């Protein structure tokens, strides 16, 4: 994952249609923007605004060989490995969530070396996307230095990650200090779930934005799934609330509960019972459990509504009740 040359970065961007136009489409059409082998950056963080509907459609479309990056990876990481979508995830932390312990699916795939979990510090992930968003090949930073996290991605220790772009130390020409330069990430595709956007892709995000704004700017194509498509008139009434601009967006798909069973700020909290069910299903035999989960929730459902139905109406209502509670004060 070395940084692109500037001429290649510019060329890729120039080739895109960045105009103000209607981009509303279906999940099935949107996943055609993802090619096997692509680097796909995933918006949200841990169990928040994970673009599950899009991942669900990618699994059903049998994509494979994706390199996946995300700030922090939760259960969708297990899905990426178990479905064969990806065998290489770049992130800072990977497990279902602290209360559920270490992911057994992640362990099964990585300890047997059938999949890679390339570990960077959380700030390094953020600054790698930011460098990509700014059109420069690196960002300078002051952490990771001295640690084995740096040594491992730099290829100084252990052969596993040696082939990959190292972060590089430099002596600051102004202060003489040691700094770390982390290389830009310019994902081929970013997949991001938002509360609302217009048909052109102007998106408003409520609450926590995680790394999504930088990811959208850094990527070469952006697919937005959104709880609701609103009018461009509504967006223009508060242009300072637009967090992701239309010019970065290539497809817009309206998917209610598009990050279930994870949360979407202000609309629904995580579907905790379902998260527990997932943890149970993958507890004893992680791989077989994950396959059974994929069968029941990814392959068998007729459509997204059927997927939600299998998670359960009562669960959905409860998640929604808890989610909207953030505005009760």
């Amino acid at each position, binding site marked *: 994952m070395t940084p692109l040359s500037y001429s290649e970065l510019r060329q890729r961007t120039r080739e895109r249609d960045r105009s103000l136009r209607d981009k509303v489409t279906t999940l099935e059409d949107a996943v055609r923007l993802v090619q096997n082998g692509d680097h796909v950056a995933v918006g949200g*963080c*841990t*169990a*928040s605004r994970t673009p599950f509907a899009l991942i669900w459609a990618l699994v059903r479309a049998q994509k494979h060989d994706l390199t996946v990056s995300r700030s*922090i990876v939760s259960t969708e990481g297990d899905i990426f490995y178990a479905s064969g979508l990806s065998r290489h995830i770049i*992130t*800072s*932390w*990977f497990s279902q*969530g*602290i*209360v559920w312990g*270490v*992911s057994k699916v*992640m*362990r099964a795939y990585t*300890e047997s070396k059938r999949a890679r*979990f390339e*570990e*960077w*510090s*959380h*700030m*390094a992930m*953020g*600054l790698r996307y*930011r460098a990509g968003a700014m059109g420069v090949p690196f960002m300078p*930073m*002051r*952490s*990771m*230095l*001295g*640690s*084995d*996290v740096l040594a491992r991605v730099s290829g100084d*220790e*252990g*052969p*596993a990650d040696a082939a990959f772009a190292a972060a590089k*130390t430099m002596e600051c020409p102004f202060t003489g*200090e*040691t*700094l770390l330069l982390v290389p830009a990430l310019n994902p081929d595709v970013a997949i991001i779930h938002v509360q609302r956007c217009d048909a052109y892709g102007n998106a408003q995000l409520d*609450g*926590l*934005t*995680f*790394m*999504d*704004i*930088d990811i959208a700017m850094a990527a070469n194509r952006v697919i937005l799934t959104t709880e609701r498509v609103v009018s461009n008139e509504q967006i223009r009434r508060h242009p300072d609330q637009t967090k992701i601009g239309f010019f970065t967006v290539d497809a817009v798909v309206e998917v209610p509960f598009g990050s279930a069973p994870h*949360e979407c*700020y*202000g609309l629904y*909290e*995580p579907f905790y019972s379902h998260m527990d069910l997932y943890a149970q299903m993958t507890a004893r035999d992680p791989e077989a459990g994950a396959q059974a989960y994929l069968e029941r929730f990814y392959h068998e459902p007729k459509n997204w509504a059927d997927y939600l139905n299998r998670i359960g109406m009562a669960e959905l209502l409860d998640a929604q009740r808890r*989610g909207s509670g*953030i505005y009760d*004060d």
Partner: protein
Amino acid sequence: MTTERARAGLSLAPVPGYTGSELLAVMSGRLLKDGQTVFAGVGIPLLAAILAQKTHAPGLTILFEGGVIGPFVEAGKLPPSTNEQRCTRRANMLVSITEVLLMLQRGYVDVGFMGGAQIDRFGNLNSSFIGDPNAPKIRLPGTGGGNDIASLADMIVAMKHEKRRFVEKVDFITSPGFLDGGQTRAERGLPAGGMFRVVTDLGILGFDDTSRAMTVVALHPGVSAQDIKANTGFDIPVPADVPTTEAPTPEELAILRELDPQQLYTA
């Protein structure tokens, strides 16, 4: 704050004893000072920070990795991670993850406060691999913001005191302590921050100013120097005059139990 403290006081029940986790939360909470800014992980660190807010440090500012500045967590609604909306309740400000981590780099954070899976003599923490990283026995979840926090802030770590956790050298340095001791941390590009205290269920540990090796600062009530030595995987000096901490008060325990009624983190 006073009202909340009074309210906590009112629900005060007889306290027969306390769990090891409660001890950790109380002892580490006491290390936080009023007016400080603390970057807290979920679990014991968060409980300890809220406890400090509700007792001696009402002006403590809590930061969460998800991008949350100055929240007030509701009793009984502890967040499952630092990246969900529950963390944001009554916060002063929400920013991106990158921004909140950059606050560490800019120097706006006084204390980083996290749990630990494995620690060594020089305070280096491992949350990435158990065993050889190239053929690990266990692939752990990894650093998250741990590396950034430990690289850029003064650190308090709360963890169980077990021989398998306190090792001569960690299998993998996920979050840097004093690296190889002495000046090595600064020499490798980390002039700021560093390990301040490790709080365990046996005592409070610090680091020698010169060698940067772990030492014992205080023992918890009923714990002997020998208990510490027996549960530490390397030779750790215990000063002859080492003090003993004051046991958790009924008020402190009552606040903790109100915060975490289901004992998610304090069992």
